[in-house]
């Protein structure tokens, strides 16, 4: 395997007295989907947020260990945090389109970054919406309000909005938790397109979803990384009894 895109090295994290991650070491390969799954409260979302430094302002939050992006420590003093967030995009569970049109949602980031060239912006809109598997559904109404889209479309729009900044890594926290099966299938379809080009890290909303999309899967239980395996293996032949019990629905 080539050099991992992200290396998580002996990371522990606590909110005050409450330890939520314990000595996590995990390599995340480039151009693949890595799934972080397990019962609630296992530390998956916290780990996702740490990869984007979203917990920097959490009071009482204490992290030890290192997280490297392309070999560089993202918590090193002087590290360019806005730059990090351009390289590492994040999509949350609830789709939150910005007020405004579909087009404005996608161009918001690039415009903020100073891009004004109309042709270039149009190009970004089409590319991002295509990658998010939304283009065909909205290409004739790019200037209508984003709020009029269905929940599933709104979530794909949020993915497109992240992609507009041409990130290298996309983090997704239960991106289909509020969606119906068809919208879920479309979001998953877009993820399978994205993995050809991006490093995708996702907290799925069910074990079944994890099994459908995972190139690699890491099982978290109470702050501990129990097992990390190729997706093909972990859902058919897990090694650890706790993983087995969880994926077969015997606890969790």
């Amino acid at each position: 395997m080539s050099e991992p895109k992200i290396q998580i090295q002996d990371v522990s994290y606590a909110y005050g007295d409450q330890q939520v991650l314990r000595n996590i070491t995990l390599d995340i390969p480039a151009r693949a989907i890595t799934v972080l799954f397990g019962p609630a409260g296992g530390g998956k979302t916290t780990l996702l947020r740490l990869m984007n430094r979203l917990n920097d302002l959490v009071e009482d939050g204490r992290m030890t260990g290192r997280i490297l992006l392309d070999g560089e420590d993202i918590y090193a003093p002087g590290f360019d945090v806005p730059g990090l967030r351009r390289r590492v995009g994040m999509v949350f569970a609830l789709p939150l389109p910005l007020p405004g049109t579909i087009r404005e949602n996608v161009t918001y980031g690039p415009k903020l970054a100073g891009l004004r060239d109309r042709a270039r912006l149009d190009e970004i809109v089409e590319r991002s919406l295509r990658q998010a598997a939304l283009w065909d559904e909205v290409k004739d109404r790019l200037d209508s309000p984003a709020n009029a889209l269905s929940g599933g479309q709104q979530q794909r729009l949020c993915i497109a909005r992240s992609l507009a900044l041409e990130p290298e890594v996309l983090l997704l926290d239960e991106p289909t938790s509020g969606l119906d099966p068809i919208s879920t299938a479309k979001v998953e379809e877009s993820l399978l397109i994205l993995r050809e080009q991006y490093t995708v890290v996702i907290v799925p909303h069910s074990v079944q979803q994890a099994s459908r999309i995972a190139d690699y899967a890491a099982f978290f239980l109470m702050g501990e990384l129990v097992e990390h395996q190729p997706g093909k293996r972990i859902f058919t032949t897990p090694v650890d009894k706790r993983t087995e019990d969880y994926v077969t629905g015997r606890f969790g």
Partner: protein
Amino acid sequence: MRRAFDEDLQELQNQMLELGSMVGEALARSVDALKRQDMQASREVIRNDMKINEKRFAIEADCLRLIATQQPMARDLRSIAAVLEIITDLERCADYAAGIAKITLMIGKEPFIKPLIDIPRMLEKDLSMLDRALKAFVDRDVDAARRIAAEDDDVDALYDQINNELLAFMLQDPRTVRQATRLLWVAHNLERFADRVTNICERVVFTVTGEMREMNIQEPEEEPQ
């Protein structure tokens, strides 16, 4: 947790065992009918094969229903996948029993060219292997499965012995060729039956370990002399 599902899995296994005993009985009856040259009983074995086929389809439908409704993973998924494979093997085993019954009808009441000795031995071996292979599945006993699969060599040895013996008859007296060939088919059916039991043993190993491996790799055929 998931008690209803666990009960469904248990029931699936019970149905599979029931199919297994129907198949064992079919084989025993087919050879018994051959020994006694009982046409009526042979026809009964052939008719009964329909029931075995139906049973197999019913179990297959149960497997698919469980996969669709329970979305099984890991050991549950492997168990159900194994049952799907095993019932296919069992159904084929039943075809061998029906095959033997058809051969008996062909031989008819014509006196045997020799007493049947090794064919009943193959039957005993087949039945014992089948029984223990299904038990190994229930017990998830990998070691037992491996041992049973190795016994396929004994069945092959019996088959070779019958083969040689019948060939000798045919060479000595060409008038025996027709019946000897038919008895050879019977032995061949019994030999294939044991191969199918070996497949069941492979599924036991798969269910427990997730490993998919052929257990009895056939040596390449010797050069014709």
